[in-house]
């Protein structure tokens, strides 16, 4: 089991013919992911070809989903049009829309999020690396890779990873795999201040997933999403959780690459978040090199096996 996506999940790519979308579609196909359709308005009827794969391209998401049974979309559409692309996936009633695009105006996301209320589609992102549920083949091939994560560093297993940062997720996954700990699913929720799925949403899913035995939560300065998740963990989660917060040295009020990572109030500094993690029984990684070890400490303290 895994959360949100499994190796049999059928996905479509919005923006499959753009350079960025095409590159990562090829990598996902190489990984063994079921990429069944692409969407580029005006290019319907063409095909995306890669090493024997022939992925049909459609003019709209609804058409693509109807024809192929795709239930999840990965969105690589450029920022000015990405909000519209998300709404199109929502309108087609997909299960999940994963917005990889970085640089979507905040106002667009405010409107998109409001328009999604009451709809069935879940949004992950934007400005996120996407999701990976590792497969059982060599280098975890045969898994489901949605987005831009390097598939080969994963191994199938029992640790769930949720993070706002792409490269820090890679760092955590690499540490886990190096220590022989595989992953159930890794979810990059993205660095933007207005996004879809939160840390808490993912933690709840991991908590309910019998195959996930431990969780790594990676956060940043800014906002209160990690704090909200930590308080829920204290009340409801019986699985070991390790946490890391990036940005202890960031100066207040400066944007550190991620639009969401601007320190505003007193509870969104790294020190405040780390203190709350500790209060909530989350094992804090002292440095980013310590993430997998922190989870091992937490699991050992509870007598839980992660491998």
């Amino acid at each position, binding site marked *: 089991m895994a959360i949100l996506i499994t190796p049999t999940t059928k996905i479509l790519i919005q923006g499959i013919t753009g350079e960025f979308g095409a590159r990562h579609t090829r990598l996902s196909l190489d990984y063994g992911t079921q990429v069944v359709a692409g969407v580029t308005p005006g290019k319907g009827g063409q095909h995306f070809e890669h090493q024997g794969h022939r992925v049909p391209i459609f003019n709209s998401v609804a058409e693509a989903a109807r024809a192929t049974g795709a239930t999840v979309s990965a969105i690589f559409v450029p920022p000015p049009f990405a909000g519209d692309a998300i709404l199109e996936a929502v309108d087609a009633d997909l299960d999940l829309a994963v917005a990889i695009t970085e640089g979507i105006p905040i*106002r667009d996301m*405010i*409107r998109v999020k*409001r328009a999604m209320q009451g709809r069935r589609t879940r949004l992950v992102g934007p400005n996120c690396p996407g999701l990976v549920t590792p497969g059982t083949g060599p280098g975890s091939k045969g898994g489901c890779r949605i987005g831009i994560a390097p598939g080969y560093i994963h191994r199938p297993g029992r640790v769930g990873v949720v993070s706002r940062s792409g*490269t820090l997720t*890679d760092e955590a996954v690499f540490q886990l795999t190096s220590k022989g700990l595989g992953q159930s699913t890794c979810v990059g929720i993205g660095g933007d201040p207005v996004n879809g799925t939160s840390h808490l949403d993912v933690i709840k899913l991991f908590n309910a997933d019998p195959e996930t035995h431990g969780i790594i939560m990676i956060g940043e300065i800014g*906002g209160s999403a990690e704090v909200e998740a930590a308080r829920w963990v204290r009340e409801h989660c019986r699985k070991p959780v390790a946490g890391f917060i990036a940005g202890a*040295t*960031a100066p207040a009020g400066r944007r550190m690459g991620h639009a969401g990572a601007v320190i505003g109030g007193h509870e969104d500094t790294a020190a405040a978040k780390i203190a709350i993690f500790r209060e909530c029984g989350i094992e804090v990684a002292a440095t*980013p090199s310590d993430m997998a070890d922190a989870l091992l400490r937490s699991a050992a303290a509870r007598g839980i096996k992660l491998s």
Partner: protein
Amino acid sequence: MNIHEYQAKALFEKYGVPVPRGAAARSQAEFATALAQLPEGPTMVKSQIHAGGRGKGTFTNGFKGGVKFCQDKVAALAMAGNMLGQTLVTAQTGPAGRRVQTVYFTVASDIKKEYYLAILLDRASSRPVIVASTEGGVEIEKVAHETPEKITKVRVDPAYGLADFQVRDLIAALGLTGAEAKNAAKLIRNLYTCFWETDAAMVEVNPLITTPAGEVLALDAKVSFDDNALFRHPEITALRDLNEEDPKEIEASKYALSYIALDGNIACLVNGAGLAMSTMDIIKHFGGTPANFLDVGGGASKDQVIAAFKIILGDPNVKGILVNIFGGIMDCNVIAQGIVEAVREVGLKLPLVVRLEGNNVEAGKATLAASGLTLVSGDTMADAAQKIVRLVA
């Protein structure tokens, strides 16, 4: 992106948010023309820099106060000469301060009472929030901490926009009645439209004032914009003042590098924002101090790495460099080649620690080893950080 007070007030006027009459001057020669646009009488002289705390700031020549009240225009003209071209240090500028390149003259308003009004994003609800307080002209953080009951927040539903009842709630919270209430309601609506239509990240009016004549005015104006939305606002992009930005940050943005200068002595070059932030953190954890934040992005090229090295070395405080690359998708060998070329081109003399991991890492490490350069290799982030901290100490 931030803009100056005088630019923000011009924007306010365009949206029907009343401000005291004012005029800006960029040179001594322009002082008289600017002042001629204002009526006789008490005049404010305000240094224009992108930082708060101007009133309590001190110029590097010893002159105190970046915002001054003058009895008349003659005094204002003389006062402006004390500010223009001088460097103002405030609580927000850092010790280096900022050079005042524009002076703004405004009519000195009669103040009945000061209030606070701001609009920004409420991350928890993903909606714009209007923040208002009866405590104006002071630091809002202090009010929030000491007397939170004096702050009212109204979250706006983006599907409907600002509703009448919400404006009434704000007016009631500010305790305004009669003509003041009517004028404030119009101001709040117009300020919200300004925030929404310009893709502002924040508009802050501190203080918002009432006058004995029943007027409601934005006495100060601080506006910043969502960088992601600038592509659809060329008229706002044109307000960018490069004098207010670190030249190294401007250079970095030309190469799509995200760079922020800090005051430490260990420079870092990293891919990914989260990894870059935590690289700074781990340097600090092992007793060093980071000189910068630098994210070369997910698909760094050789040219970007070379540009990054040059920018890092433009900071005279730098005593050592830590390169931390997790190349999940990007080819580590390309990064390694970039490092070798950059080190040769700039003739690097400082200690350099490189931690490479990921795609094609063996080839990357071989390239570094074969280069004959004196660099130290780090196995993990912790190992690399400890090594550079030792080398710089």
